[in-house]
């Protein structure tokens, strides 16, 4: 994004802190159904929710996005292609000038689909891949998922789909593979996208084992500083700016409720895709006034758009660089929202005791392997305790 400025105006970040007329980065999850059970799934996906939006309701939201001039939506899930009406809705959105960037694990991306996608304007595809090798990827995403993703990537490359994305969540096991990911993307004419692991959804369970070490945070920062201009990040590493040096490309602020939000498969609107929790639910697109009303008038979003103080971070000289980091990362690790990020590179987030919030919206399949975690890869297997909700939906409710 470029800014064309022509007179003294408040800094861009300040403009954006007050919120925009409509989101720039809208994530829209089309279903909680998923053929995989990734250990770190931030939406705890698995089973379809019976209350998911119908085709007609989905079209109505697309019409609203058209009217609000939301130029594209980041479509995800679950696995969005599990919806029987996925391709129909994709065509409808594109026809209404709402571009679609969708994330997929590639299972349904046949050679024929790849050819059709390559011939469609306003569509971008992101293939999720969390290891540059089968071993590292499958430990998180499940057995066979590496081969499925690579097959889809090959189909897209063969179809001549220019600039599709390979999207990687950075974990303790794949940080050493950054160069391999870049080489893989180059090999297929794709663009690499790396994003930050969040302790959201099932990610809360594996966060202690999977989130990059302090040394790896510095490695990611150095790598992005050297290679950043060719790599997308979804603006997700701005907490690393506290390491100093030129800021990473991007807006470098928490966009939750300001420029970012999430519509989930049942139409609930959350402040950001990493904050699927009642505490960050602003409303529902089925309510009178629809999505526009939620975006413009939700009291939660109004609060998020007021200037926030640095809280415990305000005395830190790096606060203006990192802005306190990620709201969702703090929330789901039980830390105060006006305090340091759990991955604060100056170490202020370490060893802060705090209770994790209850999880309100879990669509994991009961037998999903991810429930008995996990990700061994050279370390002793650790079993995450089962959640109280696994046995009764009311157990443990406070």
């Amino acid at each position, binding site marked *: *994004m*470029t*800014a*064309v*400025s*022509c*007179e003294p*105006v408040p800094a*861009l970040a300040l*403009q954006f802190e*007050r919120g*925009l*007329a*409509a989101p*720039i980065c809208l994530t829209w999850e089309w279903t909680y159904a998923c053929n995989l059970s990734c250990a770190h799934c931030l939406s705890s996906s698995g089973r379809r929710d019976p209350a998911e939006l119908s085709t007609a309701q989905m079209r109505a939201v697309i019409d609203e996005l058209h009217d609000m*001039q939301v*130029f*594209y939506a980041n479509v995800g899930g679950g696995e969005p292609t599990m919806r029987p009406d996925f391709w129909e809705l994709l065509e409808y959105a594109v026809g209404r*000038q709402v*571009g679609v960037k969708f994330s997929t694990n590639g299972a349904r991306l046949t050679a024929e689909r790849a050819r059709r996608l390559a011939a469609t*304007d*306003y569509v*971008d595809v992101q293939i999720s891949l969390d290891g540059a090798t089968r071993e590292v990827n499958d430990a998180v995403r499940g057995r066979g998922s590496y081969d499925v993703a690579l097959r889809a990537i090959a189909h897209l490359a063969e179809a001549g789909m220019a600039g599709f994305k390979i999207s990687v969540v950075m974990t303790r096991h794949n940080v050493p593979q950054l160069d391999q990911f870049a080489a893989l993307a180059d090999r297929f004419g794709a663009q690499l996208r790396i994003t930050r692991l969040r302790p959201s959804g099932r990610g809360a369970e594996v966060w202690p084992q999977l989130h990059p070490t302090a040394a790896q945070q510095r490695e990611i920062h150095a790598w992005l500083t050297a290679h950043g201009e060719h790599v997308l990040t979804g603006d997700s590493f701005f907490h690393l700016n506290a390491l100093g040096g030129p800021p990473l490309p991007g807006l470098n602020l928490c966009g939750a409720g300001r420029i970012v939000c999430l519509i989930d498969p049942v139409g609930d609107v959350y402040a950001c895709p990493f904050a699927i929790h009642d505490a960050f639910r602003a409303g529902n697109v089925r309510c009178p006034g629809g999505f526009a009303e939620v975006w413009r008038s939700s009291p939660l979003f109004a609060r998020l758009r007021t200037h926030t103080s640095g809280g415990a971070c305000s005395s830190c000289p790096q606060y203006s660089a990192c802005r306190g980091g990620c709201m969702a990362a703090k929330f789901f690790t039980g830390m105060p929202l006006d305090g340091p990020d759990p991955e604060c590179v100056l170490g202020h987030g370490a060893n802060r005791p705090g209770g994790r919030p209850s999880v309100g919206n879990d669509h994991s399949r009961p037998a999903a392997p991810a429930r008995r975690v996990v990700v061994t890869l050279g370390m002793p297997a650790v079993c995450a305790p089962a959640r109280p909700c696994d046995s009764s939906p009311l157990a443990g409710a406070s």
Partner: protein
Amino acid sequence: MSLSAAPFEPDRGYRLNPDVALRPEPFGALAYHFGTRRLSLLKAPGLVELVRGLGSHGSVSEALAGVDESRRPAFLQALAALAASDMIVPQP
């Protein structure tokens, strides 16, 4: 990165690229190019007006004549940047 073949020429007439949509925002407008899928920010309401009306003038210089003199150099620079990113294009 310059996408336009020709350099910006203020003596020519320009117009908003038909592939570009402008979304009004409190600070001015958000410009989205459906072809390149790039976003730009027009960070002044006056600039948004100028860009919207550009096509009805025979040249950029003529369009700028309606702008307060003190703001012209900055607006001209902004238009050059918009031409470089294909947001505005020479009139056919």
